[in-house]
């Protein structure tokens, strides 16, 4: 989308890359998403490891441009099935064609995959998704950004699968990112669930859909009171969201009555609803960490993790990190006996110890011991020199907020019409931190 109107200098792509790469010279500080070089504003968003950049000389709405860049990325993904460097390369003519219809002279035009279908003619060259390296079973939800990750579906919305006729199906994913900060004494200082209900429809003929949520769902906490003075036990398991927003296509006519959303899902992937909850919830993992002096120039770290959820659920790709004092020179780890699928590492350059576990079954507890060796005497308080412990994880078929999809109803076209529906839950760590 560079230089759509010819008002931006030719070398702007180079200027952009230089600026982003060497923001603030040697400091490893990340460039902000919006910056100005010689009167040209560069606005960029990272999606799936790719940079989407817009340039303008006008004082535009940054949110509009960033939303548009995200939308462009999604439209391309809808078309190509998979969004990565390889698929872009193979389909650049198609991408040009899409951009041409999406923006005209800097003004956004059609941006829904649905509408674009009638104006775009290049057939996507589908990249074989099975060849894309995966990182274990949860890779489908693992995209390192905060953005709610895409669904597992890597099927193009428009391409016809060779040999197979198009299958009628719809995917509904309830994806929750949780943030919890534990105090040094194990209290929860802050907690938040940021959730999204993501939908990807391959239904032919755009039928009506009804999506029913918990009947006892309520929205908006008492304004005026601090949102953190939890009502004690919150009326027996009801879900109270702080706030939520909805996709354009959603009709809320019955929402107040019976908590159902009705919509005609457009083709492609979109968020039906985003919500935010600060109501107290049970954190899936408890972290216990401590650091103690163990003789001159030595200290011991003990990290315990307990999975506080049902044993029918398994958390996976767990990664625990903890910064240790700057003058740490050596770390020796001691895993519990019989540990499988666990690994440890001491990152010398940024003085962090890392502990990864392939999976944790609900109810299980795991412990790591590490002996640190220092190059100098520590002054006083070790807890000010080390920590906090942070944790990353993915827990499929688990959601912290207890928000449920009670049913997903698809208006029937005929008696035999019975499309596949997939409703899936997944919870991920956003910022999951325990202080020492």
């Amino acid at each position, binding site marked *: 989308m*560079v230089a759509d109107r010819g008002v931006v200098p030719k070398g702007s792509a180079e200027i952009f890359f230089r600026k982003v790469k060497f923001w603030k010279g040697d400091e490893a*500080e990340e460039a*902000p*998403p919006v910056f*100005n070089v010689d*009167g040209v*504003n560069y606005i*960029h968003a*990272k999606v799936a490891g790719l940079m*989407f950049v817009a340039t303008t*000389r*006008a*004082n535009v*709405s*940054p*949110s509009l441009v*960033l*939303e*548009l860049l995200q939308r*462009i990325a999604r439209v391309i993904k809808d078309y190509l099935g998979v969004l990565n460097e390889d698929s*872009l390369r193979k389909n650049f003519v198609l991408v*040009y*064609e899409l*951009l041409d219809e999406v923006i*005209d*002279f800097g003004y*956004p*035009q*059609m*941006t*829904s995959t649905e509408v674009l279908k009638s*104006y775009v*003619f290049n057939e996507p060259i589908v990249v074989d998704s099975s060849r894309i390296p995966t990182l274990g079973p949860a890779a489908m939800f693992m995209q390192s*950004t*905060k*953005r709610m990750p895409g669904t597992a579906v890597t099927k193009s919305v428009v391409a016809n699968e060779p040999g197979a006729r198009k299958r009628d199906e719809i995917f509904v994913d309830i994806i929750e990112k949780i943030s919890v900060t534990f105090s040094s004494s194990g209290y929860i*200082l*802050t907690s*938040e669930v*940021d959730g*999204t209900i993501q939908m990807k429809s391959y239904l032919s003929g755009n039928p009506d859909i009804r999506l029913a949520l918990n009947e006892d769902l309520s929205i908006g906490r008492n*304004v005026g*009171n601090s*949102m953190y003075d939890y009502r004690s036990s919150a009326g027996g398991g009801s879900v109270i969201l*702080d*706030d*939520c*927003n*909805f996709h*354009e296509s959603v009709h809320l006519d019955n929402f107040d009555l019976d908590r159902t959303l009705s919509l005609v899902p457009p083709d492609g992937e979109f*968020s039906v*609803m*985003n*919500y*935010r909850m600060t109501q107290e919830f049970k954190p899936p993992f408890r972290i216990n960490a401590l650091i103690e002096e163990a003789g001159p120039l030595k200290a011991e770290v003990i990290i315990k993790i307990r999975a506080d959820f049902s044993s029918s659920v398994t958390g996976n790709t767990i990664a625990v990190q903890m910064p240790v004092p700057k003058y740490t020179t050596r770390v020796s780890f001691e895993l519990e006996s019989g540990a499988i699928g666990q690994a440890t590492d001491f990152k010398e350059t940024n003085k962090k110890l890392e502990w990864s576990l392939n999976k944790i079954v609900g109810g299980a507890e795991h412990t790591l011991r590490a002996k640190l060796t220092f190059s100098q005497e520590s002054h*006083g308080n070790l807890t000010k020199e080390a920590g*906090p412990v942070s944790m990353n994880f993915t827990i499929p078929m688990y959601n912290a907020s207890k928000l449920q999809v009670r049913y997903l109803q698809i208006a029937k076209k005929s008696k035999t019409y019975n499309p596949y529906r997939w409703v899936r839950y997944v919870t991920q760590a956003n*910022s999951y*931190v325990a*202080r020492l």
Partner: protein
Amino acid sequence: MAPPVPNLPKTSSPSQPSGKSEVADLKLQLRQLAGSIAPGSDDSRREIFKKVISFMTVGIDVSAAFSEMVMCSATSDVVLKKMCYLYVCNYARSNPDLALLTINFLQKDCRDDDPMIRGLALRSLCSLRVANLVEYLVSPLTTGLKDSSPYVRMVAAIGVLKLYHISPSTCLDSDFLAMLKALMLNDPDAQVVANCLSSLQEIWSLEAGNLEAVSREREALLSKQVVYYLLNRIKEFNEWAQCLILELASKYIPSDSNEIFDIMNLLEDRLQHANSAVVLATIKVFLYLTMSMTDVHQQVYERIKAPLLTLVSSGSPEQSYAVLSHLHLLVMRAPILFSSDYKHFYCQYSEPVYVQKLKLEMLTAIANESNTYEIVTELCEYVANVDISISRESIRAVGKIALQQYDVNAIVDRLLQFLEMEKDYVTAETLVLVKDLLRKYPQWSHDCIAVVGNISSKNVQEPKGKAALIWMLGEYSNDMLDAPYILESLLENWNEEQAPEVRLHLLTAAMKCFFKRPPEAQKALGVALAAGLADSHQDVHDRALFYYRLLQHDVSVAERVVNPPKQAVSVFTDAQSSEIKDHVFDEFNTLSVLYQKPAYMFTDKEHRGPFELAEELGSLSLGTGSVEHVIPAQSYEASDNDLLLGTSEKEESRGLGNNDSAYSAPGYDTSLISLEDKQVQPESNFLSLAVPTMPSHTSSVLDDLLGLGTPIIPPPPTLKLNPKAVLDPSNFQRKWGQLTTSLTEEFSINPQGAVALKVPQALHRHMQGHSIQCIASGGQPPSLKFFFFAQKEGETSPFFLVECLINTSSAKAQINIKAEDPTLSEPFSTLFRSALLALSPS
């Protein structure tokens, strides 16, 4: 989007890099296929077109294949056509002759049966951007606007805007604007309506001030009829067009409060939209509508909190940053309304530094009696942060909260604990804060000094921290037993001390200490003065000399100067003026909020948002930018220092005669004026004659004698200006809008002259002496902005318009000249520059 780098097709040719042989090869293949109607020939053409475009993408020049591409374009295959259009639009501008070749087939396609082909062809035709082909655009555009297909009308509506950018006169002379207006109010298709609105807004704002009719049209866009028509249909539009309409609505001025509530009720559900741009645009409407209704305005703040917070946590990091910046702006405007939401602004692990910095500022702003304890506790956690810059910012935040005087007691303890962490940068930052704290709350000196006294000065390396420590040593010599001896040891390393700031503080501390504990500190003072006098740094040397002479003169006077009874500082100045903050708020939902500065500081004039151009001159004319109307030149009175508008010579001289003490006349060099401009008015001569009576003149003459700071003055230019040129602000705006910049220059100005610019009037008068009139000025030092005009000698001669940006701290100037006769812009620029360079302090 990152340019896709396609795999270069493998060819038999071994010479890959230049791509020349490939291009020749492709040409040949295209020729062979040109007339072919054999089955499958479209597929082979597609393959070759793809190759051509992939070359184009990686920057290989394939314009040589232009005629072959055009030959192959006679096809019914839409994919082929689209690739061909893409190719043509890319090369038309640099090959206008070849572009002519395409007109024929594009025009033909504009009449195709398929509306899609018509739309595509029209879009490409308008995107050729070749000035001498505009005549071919008018008729297809006219037809396009009346097309039965909304797709074509939509393309045509933007096409009009494209035409305007190639040739404004062609666009305005045809009846396009009226057609767009009619379509906007009548077309059933929402996107057509939106595109008409976009085009009209942009064209009318670029035509700002050109004709009275245009400004009436602009106003008509903001009429109740239009705004209500669009708002009532808002749900028919896609989210981007909704933003456009909301932006328009935010400029609408309702007639009564009922209207305000109607609009807000109508838009209430837009706050639940998942698109952050729609929500922010809605919030802008709400905030602006309720500006004059304090209670409702405050309710709006309460209402928008939750949606904003949801957007911050649900979007991509980039989107959430853009929303958070707006939240930051609101928090800074009304911190009290957010005081219970502080936990939302806690930093999260893994957040980028630019987000954490915003959050720290917000936490600092909303700290009050009820939440200070929690906030400070949280901030203290960040001090141990791995990221040093966040750690520093956190310490500063704690200090700032302390200076806001809530619960200082607990905070001082926290700050002092930082000193025990024994991290260099933590200690340095903390010392600076402790110093500021003591200046405001001297009562804490005992607690602080006890801890500070334990810090070994060897552990403090950063100049700011070191200077703070030394300041405390001097100030509290009586409370710190070792003070004279610590100073002594620091003085021993005088020569290794790099920062002049530290050496200056050493001098002062030695003096202070001397007056408090003379016998012990005498030695230190002697060492300090000797070292200071020998110092190569001017300021250090001067201060040492000053102290030395002061002591020689009278020791008790010296004591009164160096150690006066201290008064606690009550308020520390804010870094950013409230005018700037208000200005940024006026530009809600734009980049200004992210940069935290108003648009005029980072955007050139032509590229401000629609409807902002006309306001600019007005806002500049008052410097602060808070009032938005242009003051007519006639209302100016020379004696009034608050009005910055230029005026005619006559009033000027009257002002001088009556009131010469009230204004700061620039110190003219008579010889300069006569050299440069033989047309100096008698009044101006009077002015330069009057100058020698002013004491400042002597110094500037002295400077000139010494050859200090007098830049080389270019040879006298030949252009002569009309000293009595008159141009009223609206005409100025019109001309400014019409003309294009003919010359842009950057140069240094006399640094002493830059000092004189503390009072912008000084420059107005000075330039007037050179027959260049100022029409508006503004900005905040060090960045000043002026608009000037001048006229070539003669009643009806062409005008010159100048936008002049001056940075007083770097003594740099940038001028953008728009000339009615561009051939004269060069000599005029020389003249302007020499006039500006002659500016010296008054």
